[in-house]
């Protein structure tokens, strides 16, 4: 029998997904350790979360302290610390968001007990040596000056100012003065308050003996925060169009978005489906129009992002400078279309299947599964959220999509920032 290649093979829909909860241990009333034990290989990972995001302290300090965590103690230089971690085959990275900071350590299981001791000593004894501070600030300043040459950076910075307009600490952005007059004393004070008394969460992945969790808690538990930190309850964006001119740019970066809710809102899940349809997969409305039909851009995407108490929605792209207005018109046209026409059922069915497949993938393996868990845990939800998600994906109707588009995607509610 010859194969009929024009006919697509039968596909099966995903009915349910198995979500695995990590083992949870109390460090104190406010702080927990989450452990994913079933790991089919020798890899291991530890993440320390701190109440040390960019909204804390004087502007810039949170980022500097985060960058200096391994910069040396009274008896060890930064090079010695790095050498010790490297000798044990360890990798590490750290970073901050608005609401938190994280330090991540990766390595092989056999080396982990030694690795966490080196890490503990390095952070506990952090001395803020003056030459290390000077060096970090000089190199951060260079990066900042390079960033100023990027339209993506300029647009992102402008967007942050407009998006979080109602909130001083979320909207503030750095400038050259941020790199002046930074003293080791203020870095130390920040570190004392937000790291040594600011640990909010510990996560561990690795096929360890259960006793190892005690060791992790003993090692880092002393830094646990006494009570859960407070975050801004809400925010609102400054609406309108804002352009940042960059003379020599070949492309214009666009950021279009607004303040939204997080997972605790009853419309959150349905809005995710709308968001995917509009701009969160390769076949989305925005990609189909602006890339595959007009060729304006290499890529365009819509996304949502969430904080402890609220969230935001964002459309991001880079287009040829001559197409800035055309691109905005087409984005608006796609949103209008979602408001004025019902989504064809075939398209919605495709999005359903795509989303379920992606959810299945994001629950695959201990690392992905932990991320999935933390995404809900941070907003005081639990894994039942995903079962509800599956249910909504299966049930949502075109009328509901249209209703949400009318409620949440109004051009007049957006902050529209362009740079180029």
């Amino acid at each position, binding site marked *: 029998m010859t194969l009929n290649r024009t006919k697509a093979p039968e596909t099966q829909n995903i009915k349910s997904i198995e979500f695995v909860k990590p083992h949870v241990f109390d460090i104190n009333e406010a702080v927990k350790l989450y452990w994913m034990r079933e790991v089919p290989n020798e890899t291991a990972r530890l993440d320390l979360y701190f109440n040390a995001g960019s909204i804390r302290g004087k502007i810039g300090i949170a980022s500097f302290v985060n960058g200096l965590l391994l910069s040396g103690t009274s008896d060890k230089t930064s090079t010695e610390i*790095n*050498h010790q971690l490297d000798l044990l085959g360890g990798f590490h990275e750290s970073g901050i968001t608005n609401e938190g900071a994280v330090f991540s350590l990766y390595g*092989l299981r056999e080396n982990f007990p030694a690795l966490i001791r080196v890490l503990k000593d390095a952070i506990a004894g952090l001395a803020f040596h003056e030459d290390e501070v000077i060096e970090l600030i000089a190199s951060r300043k*260079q990066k900042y000056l390079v960033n100023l040459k990027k339209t993506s950076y300029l647009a992102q910075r402008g967007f942050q100012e407009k998006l979080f307009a109602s909130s001083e600490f979320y909207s503030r952005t750095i400038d050259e003065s941020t790199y002046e007059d930074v003293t080791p004393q203020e870095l130390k004070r920040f570190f004392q308050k937000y790291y040594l008394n600011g640990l909010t969460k510990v996560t561990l992945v690795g096929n360890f003996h259960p006793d190892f969790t005690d060791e992790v808690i003993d090692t880092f538990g002393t830094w646990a925060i006494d009570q859960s930190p407070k975050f801004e309850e809400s925010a609102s964006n400054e609406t309108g169009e804002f352009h940042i001119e960059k003379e020599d740019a*070949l492309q214009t970066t666009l950021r279009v978005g607004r303040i939204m809710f997080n997972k605790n809102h009853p419309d959150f899940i349905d809005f995710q489906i709308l968001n995917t349809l509009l701009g969160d997969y390769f*076949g989305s409305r925005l990609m189909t129009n602006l890339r595959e039909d007009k060729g304006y851009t290499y890529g365009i995407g819509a996304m949502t992002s969430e904080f402890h108490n609220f969230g935001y929605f964002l459309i991001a792209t880079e287009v040829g400078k001559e197409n800035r207005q055309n691109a905005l018109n087409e984005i608006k046209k796609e949103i209008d279309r979602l408001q004025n026409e019902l989504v064809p059922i075939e398209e919605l069915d495709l999005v359903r299947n795509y989303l379920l497949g992606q959810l299945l993938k994001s629950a695959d*393996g201990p690392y992905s599964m932990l991320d999935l868990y933390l995404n809900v845990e941070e907003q005081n939800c639990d894994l039942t959220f995903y079962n509800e998600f599956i249910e909504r994906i299966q049930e949502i109707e075109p009328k509901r999509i249209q209703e949400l588009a009318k409620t949440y995607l109004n051009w007049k509610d957006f902050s529209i920032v362009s740079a180029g």
Partner: protein
Amino acid sequence: MIQFEKFVLKNGLTVLLHHDQSTPMVVVNTLYDVGARDESEEKTGFAHLFEHLMFGGSVNIPDFDGPLQNAGGESNAFTSNDITNYYDILPKENIETALWLESDRMLSLAFTDKSLEIQRQVVIEEFKQRYLNQPYGDVWLQLRPLAYRVHPYKWATIGKELEHIEQATMKDVRAFFEKHYGPANAILCIAGNFDQEKIKEQVEKYYGDIPTSLKPARILPKEPVQSEYRVLEIRRNVPVNAFYFAFKMQERRDPAFYITDVLSDAMGREKSSLFYIRLKKELKLVSDISAYITGSIDDGLLIVSGKLSENVDFEEFEKEFWKTIEEIKAEKMSEEEMTKLLNKIRTSKEFQEQGLLNRAMNLCNFELLGDANGINEELGLYSLITAKDIETMASLILNKENCSLLKVKSEL
């Protein structure tokens, strides 16, 4: 140890199966043995433009992405100077959808004039976004022709210039497909939780009737041995002076490749590496420095790149750079240093291989080099390397006559 099974279809397609029952997903990875090095110098950027067109529909299926998304899957691809790699990740139940789509575009393409026009525009925007509208974005466009005079590695995958993309015709595109996209020029790896009883039958069903192809001969000019220090200084509207040293190194299949890889780690992979300590921490000449290899199949490059500290000039920096190089050549590394480098390699390999897609891509890559089982032998090769090997290699390649230096000078 990564288990796999290999077989070759009558039409020449090499198939690798890697079963993993711990995942609900399956990966279908297809490596085509064609990259930017197979382009003619007058038509560069073609392998990559073509990769875009592969998503524009095939002979029996008008749309590639739709059916895959409908099966809960996603897909992407990349082009390098050596290869073009396509992958699909989808729930295991729907594996046939990926086999159906991938085999049809191996059979024959059916893109339209419009899809050529649009993808041309998309690639031009990609060119701008990645190479032209970024500070230091064009360094590889400058560094490649400095380091390579003859070999096609002298142009980047995106192409030498926008004009080549603008001038591509439908005829060129067809000829490219005919030449490079036959089954004998491809390696297919299916990884994940497929049905072990059925998989061979499924592969045969979708790929078996694709006509046999010949593997195109590849005759590339060998890059002549470099015999002079090449320095190019360019001025750009950037705030910080940057440097890119490119030392010629072995081709990928040379056993000494691994020695040079470890040498580059010792020089500048981590914050405890030789260059980082000497030039950044001790002398404070640079704000950033790292060393790595391009890992290309033909003769590759060992790169040392970074940025100068404020108020440091190139002359002062270069003097200390070469002094440090001489020290590396003169001093044998300690056993502890060797242990450290090997431990880092072990950790990275273990992390890399926990991802299903990585395993599938690596199996294809090693098969292309000659044997997919290379994936399981690599660590053994690294562990045989001695401090003496590194010392010898340093003396062999870390010389001015073997080096090209690109300096990006701030105009501000």
